[in-house]
């Protein structure tokens, strides 16, 4: 298990290759990558991500451990950035390796659902017309009822 919280960019390809190396026991590898979308319709200049140092790592570790307890997983990776990002930048990624594809997919979706509303990150969109905190979506909270 590897949990990384960092300001610097990460290299999706290098991370995916490194994660997929190793045991031939995991036939299935799933990655999810989140990219800064220009939600404001071409207006977004910067996405600022604030987090709670200390709690962030604890929360992500707990979420990843829970995924490992629920599914048969060979490995789990979570990378999440904070600081100032631009549209098109990669915010975060999760990766799961498992003997079976169903486990790898479900665990990755679980990680994403919990990471969205249980890890202490807050997004702020800065556009030409001002700055606004991104509101949490009901659908993200509702997604947790699946698990």
């Amino acid at each position, binding site marked *: 298990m590897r949990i990384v919280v960092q300001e610097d960019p990460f290299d999706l390809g290098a991370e995916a290759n490194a994660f997929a190396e190793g045991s031939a026991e995991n036939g299935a590898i799933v990655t999810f990558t989140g990219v800064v979308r220009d939600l404001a319709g071409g207006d977004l200049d910067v996405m600022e991500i604030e987090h709670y140092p200390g709690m962030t790592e*604890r929360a992500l570790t707990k979420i990843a451990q829970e995924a490992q307890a629920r599914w048969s997983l060979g490995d789990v990776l979570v990378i999440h950035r904070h600081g100032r990002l631009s549209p098109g930048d990669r915010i*975060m990624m999760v990766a799961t390796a498992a003997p079976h594809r169903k486990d790898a997919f479900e665990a990755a979706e679980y990680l994403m659902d919990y*990471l969205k*509303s249980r890890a*202490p990150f*807050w*997004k702020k969109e800065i556009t030409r017309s001002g700055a606004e*905190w991104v509101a949490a979506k009901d659908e993200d909270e509702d997604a947790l009822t699946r698990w």
Partner: protein
Amino acid sequence: MDVLYFAWVRERIGIPKERVETSAATVSDLVAELSAREDRYAAAFADISALRVALDQELSDFDAPLSGVREVAFFPPMTGG
């Protein structure tokens, strides 16, 4: 104890962190105490259904007791991912 504020809670209150001496029994008591201090606190805590609280870096709730707690954090619902 240390009290931390994040995102718009931090912006409304105007500081990211402060040391608070309190005998508040629960999180709600602490919120009432802070809200009584100054308008900026009252504004930040106006609707606690829009807020989340963590005690010693674990998500908790507003009924939770504060005894033994060293760090309290207030923030809006999280928007990671």
